[in-house]
């Protein structure tokens, strides 16, 4: 279940963030999304917040939580599992 969700998330992130040169296989489950990992930035963080709300109905009430939630694909998937409506 978690593997399927992570795979789906990778596809959605590639589309939403226009990561045209990347394939799902290029994104590891546990590599950092920001900084040295995938190299995402603050605008991408806003895009990910919209993605969670639009695709999973999850609103992040406290923006400070974003740092933990968007750490890796796995942390995102765990957060979705725990909070999806």
């Amino acid at each position, binding site marked *: 279940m978690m593997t399927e969700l992570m795979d789906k998330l990778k596809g959605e992130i590639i589309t939403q*963030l*226009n990561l*045209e040169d990347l394939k799902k296989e290029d994104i590891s489950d546990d590599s950092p999304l920001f900084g040295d990992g995938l190299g995402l930035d603050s605008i991408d963080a*806003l895009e990910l917040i919209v993605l969670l*709300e*639009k695709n999973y109905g999850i609103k992040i009430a406290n923006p400070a939580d974003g740092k933990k939630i968007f750490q890796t694909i796995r942390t995102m998937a765990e957060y979705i599992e725990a909070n999806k409506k």
Partner: protein
Amino acid sequence: MEAYIRGTGIVSPQKTFNTHDFLTEPVEYTTNSLRCIEPVYTEFLNPILARRMGRIIKMGIAASSICLKDGGVPIPDAIITGTALGCHEDTEKFLLAIIDNEEQFLTPTSFMQSTHNTVSSQIALQLKCMNYNFTYVHKGFSFESALLDGMMMLEEAGIHNVLIGGHDEMTEKHFKITSRVGYWKEENVPTMEIINSKTEGSISGEGAGFFLLSNQKSETDYAKLLAVKMIYQPENQKDVQSEIIELLKEKNLTPEDIDCVMYGISGDVRFDDIYYNLQKAVFGNSTSVYFKHLSGEYQTVSSFAMWEAAMILKTQTIPVCILIGENKKKEIKNVLIYNTYMNTYHTVSLLSKC
């Protein structure tokens, strides 16, 4: 008020992003909508940044980079652009998202990239250039407004060089909408035969043309820009002709001094007589050239014409693919560009050999 054209950079439906090649292999299309031949953007942009940019932003950044490199100026004293449609593709994306998602879940990227001044601001961000930055959005006068501002800045603002650009893109949706009001030909005409077309509508185009203007002469300048004029909805063609003659007088020139006239002939039977009448009445002895069969029609197309004019003056050659009739002059000293967008916006630019 004059300025030297020191550098050029242009992305168009022709292979123009190599500044040394002057239409040696013109590309012929058989379609009523021309798209730009785009360079490999990784040469100009970090791929991480490029992924967020729409096509026109990337075209603008590439054209401006080529231009600055060509002119040998890493950071200009001002960046001024003209555009009628701005970043149309991203504007469409953002507006469609508003409708599709019932005004919810709006993402920041298309919003940030959808404003008309995104190209000039992205160029500034790339260059870390904090100087004067302005974008003119005046339909068929957009590019000329940017030129005029640039020339005034060089005259009065105590600066030495200005990056000027004109850019517009065509999208599928905008093409469909403007087709419905008769802007474009219903049939596909080979572009090299557009001059003989007797039907209504032209072929749509797009492009990004940038110029580095300076108030200091250098040995590598392309040409000198002497004057720019805009005429809005003239009452008749004689008014335009008088305005052009008056402009020449201001520069101590007569029609006889104009060696080459570049006409915005678009194959639209409603408007092309405007050019032929000017040719017959005023510039019968000048060499005639046209350009929209290579670029298509768009509001800032005169930036493409200005590139051709600058190249003609620098290389002293006129490619056969843009000639109407024969080249009547051995030396090209003065070139006049005359264009109208839908017979509403009439623009004139005068350039001379350095």
